[in-house]
């Protein structure tokens, strides 16, 4: 029994570690798409965050300053996406792809110029983990709630706040209308452009934090293209979670558990097949769950008052 509980605890704590960056990405996508802007650039924004985190930590020796840098880097890239899609009405996918390529290229160039290394940065201070006294000794529950990076707790706060803002405040109502039908919002005097800028910039900040988790959350270094597709998985999780922050938690956790089990099963079956498990699971759920909520109707279309 004790052995089983210990095993379950390790499995869940591993699952959470995998889920954290994906959940950051999914929350970022959720707020962005609720405002009507599709963001496949979340991958690049996370990568910018990863690099920003290490840079800040490297320059000041403090991982917390690194976190600030990560947010700034994410916001900076988000600002590019915002100006392109909102002001210049570029295709959202094109702009997002551009962000991803730019982030990948720019971080590599900076990697070489700062540390003279094409693969990874020097080791820097990381945020480490928080162990909560008493709680950490309770089996399973301790594994779930304790022993994580501080970013885990920040993530939970962001998710809860985002849910309250979206569904319980006037601002959230307006965001949802903008993503659904910007003409409607405009016709009652809501400033569509301002709301979209706020959503995209918030998305950048959250994505930046997700990236920072990968670089300074634990290990304390940046390696080239270290986000490795998590941004894209986050986009799938956003759909999976029905563009709802709580759904984003559920979706990323499910993915994390599948991934975590997958690591364990690699000993009993061919690795290649087992590695497909989380992705197959995601696809199956997307196909099989009926009456899934539809996304914001106007997501991906730039708002143009005159064309309305």
């Amino acid at each position, binding site marked *: 029994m004790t052995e089983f509980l210990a095993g379950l605890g390790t499995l869940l704590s591993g699952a959470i570690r995998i889920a954290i960056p994906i959940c950051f990405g999914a929350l970022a996508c959720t707020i962005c798409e609720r405002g009507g802007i599709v963001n496949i650039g979340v991958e690049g924004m996370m990568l910018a965050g990863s690099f920003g985190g290490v840079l800040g930590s490297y320059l000041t020796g403090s991982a917390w300053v690194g976190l600030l840098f990560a947010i700034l880097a994410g916001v900076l890239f988000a600002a590019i996406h915002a100006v392109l899609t909102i002001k210049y009405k570029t295709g959202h996918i094109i702009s997002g792809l551009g962000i991803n390529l730019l982030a990948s290229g720019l971080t590599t160039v900076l990697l070489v110029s700062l540390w003279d290394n094409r693969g990874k940065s020097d080791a820097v201070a990381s945020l480490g983990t928080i162990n909560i006294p008493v709680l950490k000794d309770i089996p399973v529950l301790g594994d779930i709630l304790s022993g994580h990076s501080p970013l885990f707790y920040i993530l939970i706060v962001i998710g809860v706040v985002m849910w309250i803002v979206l569904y319980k405040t006037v601002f959230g*109502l307006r965001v*949802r*209308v903008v993503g659904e*039908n910007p003409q409607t919002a405009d*016709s009652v*005097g809501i400033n569509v452009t301002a709301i979209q800028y706020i959503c995209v910039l918030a998305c950048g900040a959250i994505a930046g934090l997700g990236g920072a988790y990968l670089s300074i959350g634990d290990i304390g270094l940046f390696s080239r293209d270290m986000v490795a597709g998590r941004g894209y998985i986050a986009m799938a999780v956003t759909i999976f979670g029905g563009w709802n922050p709580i759904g984003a938690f559920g979706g990323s956790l499910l993915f994390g558990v599948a991934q975590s089990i997958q690591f364990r099963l690699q000993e009993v079956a061919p690795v290649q097949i087992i590695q497909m498990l989380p992705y197959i699971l995601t696809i199956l759920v997307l196909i099989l769950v009926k009456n899934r909520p539809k996304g914001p109707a106007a997501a991906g279309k730039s708002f143009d008052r005159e064309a309305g």
Partner: protein
Amino acid sequence: MNFVEMRDISKYYGNVAANSHVNFSVQKGEIHSLLGENGAGKTTLMKILYGMTQPDSGTISVGGKKVRIRNPKDAINLGIGMVHQHFMLAAPLTVAENIVLGYEPKKGMFFDFEGAVKEIEALSEQYGLKIDPRAKIQDIPVGQKQRVEIIKALYRKSDLIILDEPTAVLTALEVQELFGVLKGLKEAGKTIIIITHKLKEIMQVSDRVTILRSGEFVCTKNTADTNPNELAELMVGRKVHAMEESFGGDVDESAPVFLEVKDAVYKEHKVKKLNGLSLKVRSGEILGICGVEGNGQTQLIETVTGIIKLRHGKVLVRGEEVKDPTPLRMLNLGVAHIPEDRASRGLIKDFPIRENTILGYHRRRQFSRRGVLNIREMNRYAQEMVENFGIKVGSIYDPVSSLSGGNQQKVVIGRALSQNPDIIIAAQPTRGVDIGAIEYIHEKLIEMKKQGKAILLISAEIDELMALSDNIAVIFGGQIVAQGKASEFDERRLGMLMTGYGKEEKEHGSH
């Protein structure tokens, strides 16, 4: 006293004058119709009043004071509300959320949903506009969506409510309900402007009417001092034939049956939309289908054009059963389709007019060989159609969305009629089209009938059915409940049959 006065308003889009020196004024507490054909500048004028677009010149006064209306918020603050033709509602949200949007009640930091519900219930009580504030917009019918828009204007304390083509989307019954609501609002001291091109409605509901033609002000009249014929003339600028005339006649019973539907049954979400429907259309006949929307008309159209597959029953063309009908097969059998909603089924709006004129027929040898389009032939064909059907276009390469509604419909009809079909399914052929174009489309359909084509006419306009049909079939609950010569019906009898009254009498006796 004039509540709103618009003086010498001009608005240009490029070189085109949407409004040219228009004068328009509304008195407090009246229902005022703004009449004109599509493209006459009615909507532009009202968009200016509601702050959605800025005039190039002219002045606006509200309540005797000169004002500048830079955006909808300014208009709302002046007590002006607008119900747009395409509703401004967010479908997944509730009625209450949609109504209070932009002026939401708060409780501390949070949105006060319950407070909103209460306020709406009070308004709904005060003006007798029944609505469920907790229902989602996507779950309520069109008539109620419009009601939501009206309550939205009232919630913003509008004294003047502008309605853009409010009856275009409503059934006959809903139209009467709406007019009741509008008269109630008038009694409560509100001022109403209705944008419309339907003469009957003006006569029925408005106190005064202002007519616009090609962006210019024609005149303002008291409704009591005018009549539909005069209004039609003022609107179009020439004499037009009145719709009271009937073109129907006797059908030659020996003419071959071109289209037949036998015992059609079709289910949608477990509801029988077609319930043993049978009908025949002969060469040289126009058969009009009359009914309240949602009684199986759409499914009937989709059956005979091969879009849906019947559960039971069959479709026969020229006496032969069509096995496994598909849209392509029906098209190749000479069944032309004028769809009920040209925006979703009739046209690809961002495509050039040229491409739209051959949609569906693009596989024909005339237009393509081995999958390669014959551009030269397409150009010639489109140009010819534009000339034959009097479609007003800049160039055949312009997107079809740049045309007015009437001209878009002419593209749809031109396409259907140009390929020499035997059978024409004409669904709402004149919906959202101005009088001039209606007249033209009617002439074309009658011409086709005289050439010996079989025409199935599905229309929500009883006047249109009475004017064009030789025979009329009344559809109710997915069945034909009555059929006969058009001359045997009048509006009152059709109204009863459409609502299922006649059928009950026939089958169960009256209660």
